[in-house]
């Protein structure tokens, strides 16, 4: 990852591919998260949840880079979680990593099926069709009680780790740091993917599909490749969340979940990898403490914030931080291709 050096070009037309002033944010963030179980153990679970959600939000973020928003990505969050839970119920001594892999595979396979269909659409249709698929799956989860546990869901029993059965506390530690490793690894990978030829071609869907076609590339296939990545990311988040909570319910794929992911993505900074995790963390913290005082108007607050961000701070939290730490006159357009 680049160090935080500022480019010295005075022209305000230089694009913001120069290193972000927020590279330190990663380092500080990771250090804080590593310390939490020791310094503030009561927040361990919350931070765990936040990281898992952050991964799912990263999935939504990938699509936002192509200018598309999916209102149904909770589908992959849930499918991965249920796949993991199913496996645990049928083979109780399964290992943690196997569960993870199976969960992600489930999400990717589902992503392929749904993706092949939805990549023919853009904009509103894309968003709402994803929603439709997630709600279809939700109905299936609710109705087929004998298979899925219905509204009560499935218990997600504790898997073994490298063949060892761990107790509650030990497993939670393993889980916590595993999620952190996944956050760092997948965050890094996604960041590199965005900067790679494949990722850049994917992002051109936002600005000019005609030209993309005239470069010899199928826009649908380009979108599908990003879609599969986004489904996989959501899946990782979902299966980790399931293991952290110990239960998976149809609520995992409920539309409010999908909306929450989109909200966090926009809150953090639409299109920013850091934003996905920063947004998730702040969201979880605020949600947990605010629901006590403002449970009744929680949606109103979210909606209000969403409006404020879109109208006045389209770069989200990361955008605000970047402006605050900008030293030269360059104004990074909130829409430039490469964001951290």
């Amino acid at each position, binding site marked *: 990852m680049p160090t935080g050096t500022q480019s010295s070009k005075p022209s305000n037309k230089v694009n913001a591919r120069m290193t972000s002033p927020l590279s330190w944010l990663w380092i500080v963030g990771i250090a804080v998260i590593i310390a939490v179980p020791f310094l503030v153990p009561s927040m361990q679970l919350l931070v765990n949840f936040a990281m898992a959600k952050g991964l799912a939000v990263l999935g939504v973020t990938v699509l*936002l880079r192509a200018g598309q928003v999916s209102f149904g990505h909770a589908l992959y969050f849930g499918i991965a979680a249920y796949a993991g839970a199913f496996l645990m119920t049928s083979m109780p001594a399964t290992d943690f990593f196997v569960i993870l892999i199976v969960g992600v595979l489930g999400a990717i396979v589902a992503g392929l099926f749904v993706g092949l269909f939805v990549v023919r659409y853009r904009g509103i*249709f894309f968003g709402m069709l994803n929603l439709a698929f997630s709600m279809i799956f939700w109905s299936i989860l609710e109705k087929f009680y004998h298979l899925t546990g219905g509204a009560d869901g499935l218990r997600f029993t504790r898997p073994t780790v490298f063949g060892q059965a761990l107790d509650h506390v030990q497993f939670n530690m393993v889980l916590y740091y595993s999620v952190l490793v996944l956050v760092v690894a997948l965050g890094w990978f996604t960041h590199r993917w965005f900067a790679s030829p494949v990722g850049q071609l994917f992002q051109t869907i936002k600005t000019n599909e005609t030209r993309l076609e005239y470069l010899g590339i199928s826009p649908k296939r380009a979108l599908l490749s990003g879609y599969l990545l986004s489904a996989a990311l959501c899946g990782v988040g979902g299966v980790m969340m399931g293991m952290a909570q110990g239960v998976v319910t149809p609520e995992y794929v409920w539309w409010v979940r999908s909306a929450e992911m989109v909200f966090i993505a926009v809150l953090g900074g639409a299109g920013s990898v850091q934003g996905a995790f920063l947004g998730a963390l702040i969201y979880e913290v605020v949600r947990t403490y605010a629901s006590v005082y403002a449970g*009744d108007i929680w949606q109103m607050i979210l909606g209000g914030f*969403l409006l404020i961000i879109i109208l006045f701070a389209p770069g989200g939290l990361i955008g605000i931080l970047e402006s605050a730490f900008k030293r030269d006159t360059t104004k990074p357009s909130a829409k430039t291709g490469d964001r951290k």
Partner: protein
Amino acid sequence: MNFSIFLLALFDGVAYAALVFIVALGLTLIFGVMRILNVAHGSLYAIGAYTTVSLVGYFLALGFAPAFAFPLMIVSAILVGIVIGAPLEYFLLRRIYQKSEVLQLLVTFAVFMILEDVQRLVWGTQPYFNSSALQVLGNVTVFGVTYTAYQLILLPLIAVVLLLGMRFFLRHTIIGKLITATTEDREAAQSIGIDADRVFLFTFVIGAVLAGLGGALASPTTSILPGMGADMIVLSFAVVATAGLGQIEGAALTALMIGLGRSFAVYLYPEISVLVPYLIMVLVLLVRPEGLFGSPAARKI
């Protein structure tokens, strides 16, 4: 399935379709003219229903005849359009016309979230119910099956009147033609002196009134609960998407398809009745991505 059940399902479907069409009409009108998918449309529907029930309850308690419910419905619809719709367009939507489709969608979605809690704050979470309007019109018996005249006759009648009225309005009245012109080419319309801002405001208010009217008309037929707005937006979007965004006549047909599909599913396969609108939409779009009556957007280069 015996004949009576068949008729019941049929009547249910038609009544339901009529309501959904009225709401979808507003949604597709707004989209056709302003190219914005108003996610808050469902909330306007719900608020129309809540407002009607509140007004009806208030006036009936004062001693007014139950038939007064009907004019109150119209009042509710207009209130929704003017008190909520107009400021929404004027202060909020007007700022986002230049932004990307995604952002516009998120803005109307944010409004939806806000309005959902507004409903909760104003009316609480308990169900509301007032069926006086149904009772005013009484029942009819068709082929041995008894059904309310309100649902079987009045609702479809209103839907048809609105459909024909909208067609006439858009094609044969001056304002309607201004709207049509602005829809086809906003810049050209402005260059010949049409105030596109006003056209947009007017269109949005009409769309909002229609949503409110749908809610008002629905209020006697069902208990009003939180979440009915969310249900309705998904349903009306399914109707609009299946027909093709902006297709008014097509929306009538798809409303009927989806209404009947859902009601028959309730009687035959209740487990999937909730899924039917989504399934129909997905199946149609699989074959015709632009909707049954939509025309594929040809990009010019």
